[in-house]
């Protein structure tokens, strides 16, 4: 899946709020999500479409209902690719600094 799509999908406060709503309560219908969003039903539908294209949500049909689930797998991949790498860099910098200072002491 495209990292670009994930970042673009996250670059909108309304879409981030939808993810928060699903994080609080997973598996909601469009109607349930609209109740807690200060937004037109049509806009919510559009935002959900973009989130689904980015694979940040998945949908499942249960009888006549379509349920929306948050899918954090792409977020995890972004974390692995873009965040953990930098954390590790910082930790190894501290590690080198410690080695250097301790060597100078003796």
């Amino acid at each position, binding site marked *: *899946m495209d990292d670009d799509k994930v970042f673009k999908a996250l670059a909108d406060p309304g879409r981030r709020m939808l993810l928060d709503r699903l994080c609080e309560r*997973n*598996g909601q219908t469009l109607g349930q999500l609209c109740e807690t969003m200060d937004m037109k039903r049509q806009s919510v539908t559009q935002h959900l479409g973009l989130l689904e294209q980015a*694979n940040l949500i*998945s949908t*499942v049909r249960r009888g006549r209902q379509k349920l929306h*689930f948050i*899918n*954090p*797998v792409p*977020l*995890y*991949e972004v974390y*692995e690719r873009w965040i953990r790498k930098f954390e590790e860099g910082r930790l190894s910098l501290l590690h080198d600094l410690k080695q250097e200072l301790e060597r100078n002491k003796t």
Partner: protein
Amino acid sequence: MTDKSASFVYVTYIRTTPEKVFEAITRPEMARRYWGHENVSKDWRPGSGWQHIRTDEARTVDLVGEVIESDPPKRLVISWANESQKDDPDQYSRVTFDIEPQGDLVKLTVAHDDLQPGSGMLNGISKGWPHVLSSMKSFLETGQGLGL
């Protein structure tokens, strides 16, 4: 009546074949390389048991359950409980793996149903699955899992 209303649905797209994904779940020598555990069953047929065994020296059994449905390489449904809670039917949740080819990718959907809201299991799996699935994707695409 125990509340088992909580569900999660995870989706990942992997550049591989459905057969490889099915094997990555069911073959111990593959699962150990990206999951830190092996999934072990004598035949992965409906009615057979399965165990989720840590790949350390103690070979601790963390999870147990039964195979409910098996249609390789498209679908696998298993029940799922902590080993320590295996005698309590209320503690069993259900995991469904759906594997479908989409062009040159495979769409893997993992649905985890019948979870108790607020339970330790729910908390554990909601942290665990994103990592396991990212690690499986990395393993199948590059031969390297993520550190677990």
